[in-house]
């Protein structure tokens, strides 16, 4: 028997597998037993109705997909009246994700959403295709600090901050979020990309730019998780390109306490459940009694090949 539970600050998850925001809804009850998940993460909501971006909203690319949905939302009233009760038919903790374009909006949103029936507040300051001048706080440490600081003051509930891989120095952004009082970091959102259709000579998706997700981004995000985990003390939730058990292990070895899964659900709708089962088996096989012991357990040395007389180290 493996202890599959993980603790993210005050929140205990029965296993480290959660969906990524925007890649989950109760519609998935069509194909899986939602109650088996470590947590539920709702689609990012904004205060008011947003239609989102014009289709096509997604396209296949070499390492996965790009998308620009444009954060469509029916607003927070609808969220609490209809969506939250719908989520509450299921037992895992509910993470509510919010977005806003100004720091004042964000503070007010946080206050209004956190007092509702959610267990954790996820702050999406990193949607890559929002207006780059307004919405994307996670590109800069100061902006991140400012917005998280205000949000922190609005609630006692755990606040998770979702970072952006488009930041030039994600480590200082992570540290800023920690200083401002974040309880955990989600590393990370999608990488900004562009695909041009060479038949039509036009962008492949309606919003031109889209966020890259799927297996191809994993090496980049694993690196960021590793860097952030060494720089902050709060738990990190790894997110990006997880499609198999070993990917979860890789993120945890790099320093993640738990993970979020997006793309896989599009390909294998009950893949998250198969990963929960497979992760437990992996731990049994490898003799890990607690999945939490994987966190940060990478052996931080050169690979095991003996390089009897290794090359001079880099200058």
């Amino acid at each position, binding site marked *: 028997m493996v202890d599959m539970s993980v603790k993210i600050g005050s929140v205990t998850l029965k296993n480290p597998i959660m*969906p990524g925001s*925007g*890649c*989950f*809804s109760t*519609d*998935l*009850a*069509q*194909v*899986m*037993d939602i*109650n088996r998940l470590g947590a539920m993460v709702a*689609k990012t909501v904004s205060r008011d109705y947003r*239609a*989102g971006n014009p*289709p*096509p*909203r*997604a*396209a*296949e*690319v*070499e390492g*996965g*997909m790009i*998308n620009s*949905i444009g954060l*469509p939302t029916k607003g927070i009233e609808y969220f609490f009246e209809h969506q939250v009760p719908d989520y509450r038919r299921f037992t895992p903790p509910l993470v509510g994700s919010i977005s806003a374009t100004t720091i004042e909006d964000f503070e007010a949103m946080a206050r209004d959403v956190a007092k509702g029936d959610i267990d954790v507040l996820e702050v999406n300051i990193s949607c890559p295709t929002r207006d780059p001048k307004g919405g994307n706080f996670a590109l800069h440490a100061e902006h991140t600090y400012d917005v998280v600081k205000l949000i922190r003051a609005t609630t006692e509930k755990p606040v998770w901050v979702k970072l952006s891989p488009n930041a030039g120095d994600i480590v200082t952004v992570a540290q800023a979020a920690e200083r401002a009082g974040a309880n955990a970091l989600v590393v990370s959102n999608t990488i900004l990309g562009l695909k041009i259709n060479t038949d039509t000579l036009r962008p492949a998706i309606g919003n031109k730019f889209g966020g890259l997700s*799927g*297996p191809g981004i994993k090496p980049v995000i694993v690196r960021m998780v590793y860097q952030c985990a060494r720089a902050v003390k709060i738990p990190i939730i790894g997110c990006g390109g997880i*499609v*198999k*058990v*070993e990917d979860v292990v890789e993120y945890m070895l790099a320093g993640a306490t738990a993970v979020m899964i997006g*793309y*896989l*659900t*599009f*390909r*294998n*709708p*009950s*893949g998250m*459940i*198969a*990963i929960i*089962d*497979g992760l437990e088996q992996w731990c049994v096989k490898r003799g890990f009694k607690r999945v939490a012991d994987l966190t940060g357990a990478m052996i931080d040395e050169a690979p095991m090949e003996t390089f009897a007389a290794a090359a001079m180290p880099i200058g």
Partner: protein
Amino acid sequence: MATEPFTSAPVMVGRSAAAPEPRPIPAEESLCPVISHSWVNAEYRHLVVEASPKALAVTPGQFFNLLCPSPDVGELFFRRPQSVYRIDRPKGRVEFLYKCVGRGTRGLATLKAGDDLNMVGPLGVGFHLDPTWRHIVVLGRGVGIATLGPISQLAKDNGVGVTAILSARDADFVMAGALFAEAGEVVSVLDTDGTSAVDNVEKILDGLIAQKRADAFFTCGSNRLFQLMKRVGRANTIPGQVAMEQVMACGLGPCYVCVRTFEVDGKKELRRVCIEGPVFDMQEAVGW
């Protein structure tokens, strides 16, 4: 040793007992053995698979999201939606009729009898037949004919008469004719002899309305024909249903990739083709 690049646990059709489920889970990922797979004409293929009990519960207008094998060394990252073309419950089979257009469908075309097709479904909202209807009109073109095909079954089962107006480039591409012939009457309209012109189709519709053989309209596959049917339907207050397409990512509802525009009481809204459709009210749909 690392496992396969993806972790999933599809139901293996014909090879494993379905596990007991604590809650009703209507759709599933399943590996379905291919029974037969053949060319219907130069562009379309007909695929028959052995289905799981859940998959067999599919209704006309619903679809499956198929994991097409790659036709080359590159990976395919999206599934491809295909509506069910025939449901053969006695034999435990579902059938698809699809057009080879790009990498996904070219990859799908590589499957041979005995191979497994990985499919997720049944998904979406299918066609609805009102038991008070006596005679319906189906108007399809291109891949839309595949989607409309199983209406013939629905109509037969419900004792409703059908006129199927099947529009195509030439006689080779009038598919599903046999299915509809079993259930009612087939009118082929072709580009080759000009009968497929919107004007002519309008005349046919008007004729059917005059004959009171048009209690409801169904269409799929051509925006032009959809707009025609919508207009004629509105003018004659004939209820209608349209099956729509859109690029999909999840096929299940969460991702909001597959939206199309609808209009209700003058207000525009976006709906997801995969879960609020693919079959929608014809008057609310705006087109594509």
